[in-house]
């Protein structure tokens, strides 16, 4: 069992892994079922090893669209644990509704933990009154993840949810009955190939904070730097994977600091200095300052990442494209994938398929926005 920490002393183990990622968005906002994304992941089955799969879906709870939907996993079979979480939630939120997340007991997954979802609105008290709703939710999620042993908040956004666990993605989809029960306008998915730890349900992707999700393939060689920098801003990596730092970095830069993805992409995967030195003066100044200030958030090492939040899906690869990402589009549909084959498997005649350079984001936005 992995121990929890509140403030690290710099000595945390992280997991090492290889993976497949896939994302699809209907930029018109039309919601669709998960069959397409499940099939795409099946196409890339060899990239995973059955020790982790997961999905993030946007637009699934229109009836509760003003509530934060908390998906919580209870790792231990301890009734006291759920009670502790329930009490914590009732103390800090108005719980509008809560229920067990429906699962298919016939699905071929081993030993699944208990999943529960809560639709909540913040009940801010005392000094927390100064926090925005989002910051308040982040704080409470961090509390559960770091201080309540055995409970993990898998997702915490409005009108969206994360479903993940140990198994191949199609098994996880089957377990949560994703194709039957949910419709969304963005689906992202992940298949894991953990190389040094047995998979555990909390370690699967996507990672989520509020409605921001991240799926990621690669090993971040800057993990220690990124993690220790994020700790200064109140983010504690409790799930021991590289992806978690990307999720928190996205939250810090895009939500809290309101930087657009075009800028954030250049923080995660900045141009080389010899390139910057050759730029026009204002551009040179811009990139120099960006690198100087956000140096601790440069994501080094190979990565392909798909970031999503309401209205936006983004694909990005590392600065020297050690893990390329491929994009495709057909009409309003935008695809990003570890492999081109997966796109072609679910969209036989795409209008365009391309592989962007390192550090150049693929951005899908809702047309109505």
């Amino acid at each position, binding site marked *: 069992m992995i121990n929890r920490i509140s403030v690290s002393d*710099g*000595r945390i183990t992280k997991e*090492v892994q290889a993976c497949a990622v896939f994302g699809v968005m209907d930029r018109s906002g039309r919601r669709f079922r998960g069959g397409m994304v499940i099939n795409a992941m099946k196409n890339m089955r060899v990239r995973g090893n059955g020790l982790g799969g997961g999905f993030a879906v946007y637009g699934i709870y229109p009836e509760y669209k003003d509530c934060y939907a908390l998906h919580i996993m209870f790792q231990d079979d301890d009734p006291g644990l759920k009670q502790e979480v329930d009490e914590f939630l009732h103390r800090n939120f108005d719980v509008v509704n809560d229920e067990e997340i429906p699962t298919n007991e016939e699905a071929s997954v081993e030993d699944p933990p208990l999943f529960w979802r809560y639709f909540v609105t913040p009940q801010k008290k005392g000094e927390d009154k100064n926090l925005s709703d989002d910051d308040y939710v982040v704080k409470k999620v961090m509390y559960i993840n770091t201080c309540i042993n055995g409970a993990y908040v898998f997702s915490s956004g409005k009108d969206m949810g994360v479903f993940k666990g140990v198994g191949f993605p199609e098994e996880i989809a089957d377990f949560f009955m994703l194709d039957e029960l949910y419709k969304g306008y963005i689906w992202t998915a992940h298949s894991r190939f953990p190389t040094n730890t047995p998979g555990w349900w909390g370690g699967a992707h996507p990672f989520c904070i509020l409605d921001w999700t991240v799926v990621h393939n690669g090993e971040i*060689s800057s993990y220690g*730097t990124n993690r220790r*920098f994020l700790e200064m801003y109140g983010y504690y990596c409790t799930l021991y994977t590289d992806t978690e730092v990307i999720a928190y970095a996205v939250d810090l830069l895009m939500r809290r600091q309101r*930087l657009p993805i075009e800028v954030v992409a250049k923080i995660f995967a900045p141009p080389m200095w010899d390139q910057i030195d050759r730029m026009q003066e204002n551009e040179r100044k811009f990139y120099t300052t960006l690198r100087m200030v956000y*140096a601790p958030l*440069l994501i080094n090492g190979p990565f392909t990442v798909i970031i999503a939040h309401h209205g936006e899906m983004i694909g990005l690869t590392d600065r*020297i494209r050690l893990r390329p990402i491929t994009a495709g589009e057909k009409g309003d549909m935008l695809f990003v994938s570890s492999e081109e084959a997966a796109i072609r498997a679910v969209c036989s005649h795409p209008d365009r398929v391309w592989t962007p350079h390192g550090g150049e984001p693929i951005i899908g936005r809702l047309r109505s926005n």
Partner: protein
Amino acid sequence: MAMKSHLLPEFIVERDNERCDSCKVCIKQCPFGVHYYDEEKDRVYSREELCVGCQRCVVYCPKNALKVIPYPKHYRPNDYWNESYIRDIKKQAESGGIILTSCGSARRTKIYWDHILLNASQVTNPSIDPLREPMELRTFLGRKPDALEIDLENMEIKTELHPNLMIEAPILFAGMSYGAISYNAFKSLAMAAKKFGTLFNTGEGGMPKDMREEFKDCTIVQCASGRFGVDPEYLNYSAAIEIKIGQGAKPGIGGHLPGEKVTAEISSTRMIPEGTDALSPAPHHDIYSIEDLSMLIYALKEATNYEKPVCVKIAAVHNVAAIASGMVRAGADIIAIDGFRGGTGATPKIMREHVGIPVELALAAVDQRLREEGIRNKCSVIVGGGIRCAADVVKAIALGADAVYIGTAALIALGCTMCQHCHTGKCAWGICTQDPELSKRLNPKVGAERAYNLLRAWSLEIKDVLGGMGINAIESLRGNRDHLRGIGLEEWELKVLGIKGAGE
């Protein structure tokens, strides 16, 4: 009555008389008067009790006729009462004084660098070939904002930034004053720093007027307790200002440049009368508290129109983390921590050997403390005091340093052999001396080339190691303790360093 000295020689000078042709080069080269010519016998002899082991004569003997080797241990072997203690006691029994020495601590204490191992990528993460891919060592030193406000349309950054220093590798030359070292050594470092794209540090002895214009962009000017040579022009002809509170080789005490070294040039650079002793008080007499430090920091910022980062340098002492945090809150943009192995031109041996803590532990504690307080990006951290090689640099960066200062290593590049006799002012290599005959032995052009080559060589090595780790920019190594493992360390040491043991 003259006392017979009981001290044994420290070195044996072996002269191969078949090779020696009495050319007398050794006599000319040795400032300590070891070698002499006996006309009657037409032979050169040596008074080895005077030899400091600097190896100058060995290197310059045209016939390779000389060997200078440590004197065999004569006292009965004893681990407790070893040679060093016996010798010091005898010296003090004869002199009745404090034992003076120089350079950094020579005593056997745990070297943490040697108990830390580096990581490399295998399979799950590709290593990067530095011969084929860019490897970036560019480093910025100074205060950083928490966030940037950006005007996207014009690609303009609206946040007002604090001044930062840009250097091409995370290595700077440490403060060594003109006075402690020769003009030629001082200038060698300035030239090397300029050519390489890093900074050198004036130390506390001011900046010679003739160098100001040429080197202003690569100079850190120091303001120490003696305030030698500090005036508005000095402060403004610089890239940054450093307030020197303490020094690793002698924490808690000041400095003393004897009057005989205060030549006309040094007198005008330090702004003190020729031939007078230059005394640096132990404390700054206007800094008796953290509030006072803050006032000096802001006085210097005012004097330079807030255009230059202000660095505060302290010795690594027991409570270094809390002190560093206070310094950042007092307004320091950069903090420099000098470990107990840091060098000096002169220090009482007791201070050099017994005061302060290893910089590895100090650095780890400071970095962690500043992070816990959420102020790590409000300053940069430079560490010095015994950085011997590129691996030490890599380990320092991974522990959390932004850059390192090298002093001793830079002087070794110029010719120093660590004979530990800087305080005599007789440096045979022309480095730590004001004797014009000796200092002209060091040609600044050649010195600069050697110092530059060292920076270049270390940079190449750092790139190799980074590539192996799968990192292509030095900022991704900074504070990245995951890439370090300890070996032969106790649990408390691993905890202070914030690293795991090898195999964990």
